[in-house]
C-alpha cells in the first residue's frame, strides 16, 4: 500500500486541464458510460464502490445520491463544495487547478444519477487561480456538448455554474454554504431531524445534493473504471484512495493520493520525512482533528476506522507534521484563534466559547497561566462540544481537548514556568521573541 494515483493519475501530464488532452487520457469516458446506463445503476455503482464523502465527515455518497427524487417533476440542484478552508488541506486546490475536467465530468454524471438540471460549484473567493481553470473547463465542456442541452444525446440537460465565496471558513459547512449561495450571510441552517434533509429540501426548498470536489472526482473514476476495481482498494470500511495534503516540517510537502489504509508513517516517508529534528506530533486530518504523538503515529493507518480507533479522524486529509521544535500550546493558541475568527456567531456556545478558549490559551502563552486553567479549558470544551448549532463548535474543541490529552505536560509546564518547554527557538514563536514592536497593535 502506498501512493496510488486515481484522481491524480494524469495530474502531471502537460495541458491536462485542457479538454483535448483530457479526452486523450480517457476523459469523459465516464460520462459516456453513464449516459448509456440506467440512472439507478449509476447510484448502485457508487454504492458498490463503497465511496464515502471526502469533505470530512465520510458519509456514504450513494445514500445522498439515492435520496433525491428520481424524476424531473420539480427542480433539483447539485452543489460542489469547493470552499476548502480547513487549515492544512490543499487537495481541492490542486484538483481544480490541474484536473478541473474530472470535477466537471463527475458533476455531469451526478446530475444524471439525481435528475438534476442545474449545478453550482461553490469555490472560495481566495481560489481565483484554480477557479479560472474550472471556468475554462466548463466553457470547453459546453462547447463539446458535455454540458448544456441534451448531453451526448441523452435527453438530459445540465447547466453548471460557478459561485465564488468571499472569505469564510464557515461557508464550507454544507448548510452555511447553501445560505451563502442564496445570497445571505454564511450562517448554517436548521438540520435534520429538526428540518428536512437537503436531499428533500435544500436550496430554495428544492432537493439538493452536496458533495466535496474529491467525492465527485472519485465517483467519476468509479463510473469510468467500474466499482469493483475501486472497491478492491482500501480496507473493509474505507474503500479506494484518499488525497492527503502533507505540510509542516517535511522535506517534500504536497498532495499525495494514497490507498486507504496506508500507514501514516509510510506517507510521512514518501513526503521526504521530518526536517530539522525528530517527529514530535502529527495532525492527520486538518486542524479540526486531534493531534497525535509520534508514538501514536506508528499505529495509525490512513483510513476512517484506524484513525477513530486511535482517537483522531481522517477528516479532510490535511496532514500536518511537526518536529520537536514545535510548541504544542502555542500551536493550539493559534488554532483557537482560527476558530474564534471563523465562528459565525449564530449560537452562543461557539461564539462565546471559542473566545474563551482563545483567551485562556493566550493568557497561558503570555505567561499569565493559572493553576486550573487546563481544567477550565476542558470545561469550556465540554460546554461547546455537542451543544453548538453546527460542526464548527465541535471542531474548535476537539484539537484543544486532544492536545491536552496527548501533551498535558506541556500545558502544565507553561503554567508553572511561564515559558515554552521547547525553549526560546520554539515554533510558533512565543510573543516576546516574535515581535516586541507588534504590541502597538494590541487593543
Amino acid at each position: 500500500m502506498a501512493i496510488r494515483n486515481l484522481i491524480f493519475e494524469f495530474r502531471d501530464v502537460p495541458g491536462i486541464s485542457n479538454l483535448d488532452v483530457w479526452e486523450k487520457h480517457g476523459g469523459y469516458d465516464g460520462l459516456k458510460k453513464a449516459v448509456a446506463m440506467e440512472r439507478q445503476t449509476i447510484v448502485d455503482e457508487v454504492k458498490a464502490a463503497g465511496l464515502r464523502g471526502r469533505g470530512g465527515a465520510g458519509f456514504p455518497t450513494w445514500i445522498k445520491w439515492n435520496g433525491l427524487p428520481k424524476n424531473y417533476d420539480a427542480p433539483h440542484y447539485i452543489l460542489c463544495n469547493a470552499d476548502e478552508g480547513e487549515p492544512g488541506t490543499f487537495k481541492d486546490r490542486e484538483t481544480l487547478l490541474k484536473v478541473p475536467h474530472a470535477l466537471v465530468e463527475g458533476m455531469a454524471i451526478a446530475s444524471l444519477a439525481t435528475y438534476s438540471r442545474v449545478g453550482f460549484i461553490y469555490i472560495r473567493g481566495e481560489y481565483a487561480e484554480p477557479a479560472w481553470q474550472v471556468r475554462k473547463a466548463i466553457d470547453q465542456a459546453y462547447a463539446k456538448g458535455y454540458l448544456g442541452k441534451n448531453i451526448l444525446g441523452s435527453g438530459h440537460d445540465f447547466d453548471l455554474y460557478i459561485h465564488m465565496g468571499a472569505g469564510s471558513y464557515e461557508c464550507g459547512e454544507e448548510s452555511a454554504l447553501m445560505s451563502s449561495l442564496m445570497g445571505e450571510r454564511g450562517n448554517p441552517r436548521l438540520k435534520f431531524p429538526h428540518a428536512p434533509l437537503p436531499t428533500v429540501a435544500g436550496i430554495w426548498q428544492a432537493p439538493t445534493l452536496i458533495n466535496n470536489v474529491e467525492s465527485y472526482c472519485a465517483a467519476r473514476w468509479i463510473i469510468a473504471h467500474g466499482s469493483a476495481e475501486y472497491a478492491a482498494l482500501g480496507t473493509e470500511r474505507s474503500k479506494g484512495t484518499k488525497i492527503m495534503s502533507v505540510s509542516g516540517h517535511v522535506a517534500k510537502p504536497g498532495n499525495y493520493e494514497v490507498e486507504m489504509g496506508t500507514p501514516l508513517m509510510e506517507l510521512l516517508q514518501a513526503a521526504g520525512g521530518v526536517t530539522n529534528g525528530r517527529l514530535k506530533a502529527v495532525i492527520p486530518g486538518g486542524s479540526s482533528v486531534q493531534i497525535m504523538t509520534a508514538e501514536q503515529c506508528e499505529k495509525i493507518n490512513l483510513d476512517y476506522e484506524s484513525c477513530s480507533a486511535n482517537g483522531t479522524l481522517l477528516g479532510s486529509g490535511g496532514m500536518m507534521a511537526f518536529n520537536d521544535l514545535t510548541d504544542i500550546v502555542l500551536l493550539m493558541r493559534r488554532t483557537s484563534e482560527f476558530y474564534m475568527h471563523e465562528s459565525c456567531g449564530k449560537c452562543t456556545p461557539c461564539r462565546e466559547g471559542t473566545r474563551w478558549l482563545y483567551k485562556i490559551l493566550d493568557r497561558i502563552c503570555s505567561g499569565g497561566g493559572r493553576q486550573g486553567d487546563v481544567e477550565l479549558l476542558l470545561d469550556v470544551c465540554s460546554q461547546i462540544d455537542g451543544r453548538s448549532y453546527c460542526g464548527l463548535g465541535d471542531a474548535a474543541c476537539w484539537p484543544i481537548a486532544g492536545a491536552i490529552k496527548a501533551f498535558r505536560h506541556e500545558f502544565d509546564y507553561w503554567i508553572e514556568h511561564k515559558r515554552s518547554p521547547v525553549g526560546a527557538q520554539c515554533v510558533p514563536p512565543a510573543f516576546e521573541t516574535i515581535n516586541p514592536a507588534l504590541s502597538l497593535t494590541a487593543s
Partner: protein
Amino acid sequence: MAPNSINPLADPVAKPVALEESAFLFSEEAVAELEEIATHYPERKAACLPALWIAQREYGGSLTPAALKEVAERLGISYTEVEGVATFYTMYNLRPRGRHHLEICTCLTCSVSGAYDVVHALEHAMGIHLGETTPDGEFTLSEAECLNYCGAATVVQVGDKYFTNITPQNCISLLDQLRESPSYTPAMLADSLVKLHTPGAGFKGGGSYTPEDLG
C-alpha cells in the same frame, strides 16, 4: 489581548452617517454582467455575493455605503440585508485598502514555518503594523487565516494571486515587484471574481509564483 492577535472587534466598520442621494455608479457593462449572473439563480437575491464583487470593482476596490445601497436597489433587497452580507465575509473591503493588499497567512503550518518572521520583515520594510496601510497608499498589510496552500508555506495573497514559499528575504523583492506592477489590486481581484461567474468570459491564466519568479 495578545500583541499579534486578530481581534474581530478591534477594527469596527465606520457606520454611514447619512445615505446621501447618490448617483448609481455601475457602468453599462457592469449592469449587463449583473443581469446575466442573476439569471443563474431562481431569485435575484442570490446574486448578492457577485453583485458585491461588481460593486467592489466599480467603486474602486472598497464598498462604500453608496455601493451597498446601489447593490440593494439593483437586487430589490434591503440595505440592511446587503450590509449584513458585506460585513460577514472577510474579502469585502468596507474600508479603502492600499493599491496592493498583502494578506499573509499565519495559520497553523505557516506559523510553524516562519510566517511571523515574514510579518516582522514586511512590517519593517513597510514601516507599518499589521492591519495598517502605508501613508503613500501603496500597501495594506493584513494577517490571514489559512489560505490552504500550506504545502508552500509561507503564503501571501495579493489580489487574485498567491505568492508562495515567502521568506523574510524574498518578501522584500516581492514588495519591489508589486511596486512596479499595475496588477494584483483589490479592484482587479473583484473583476476576476465577477468574470469567473460568467460563461465564456475568457481564460485569463493563473498559476502561483515561486521564489524563482520573484528573482
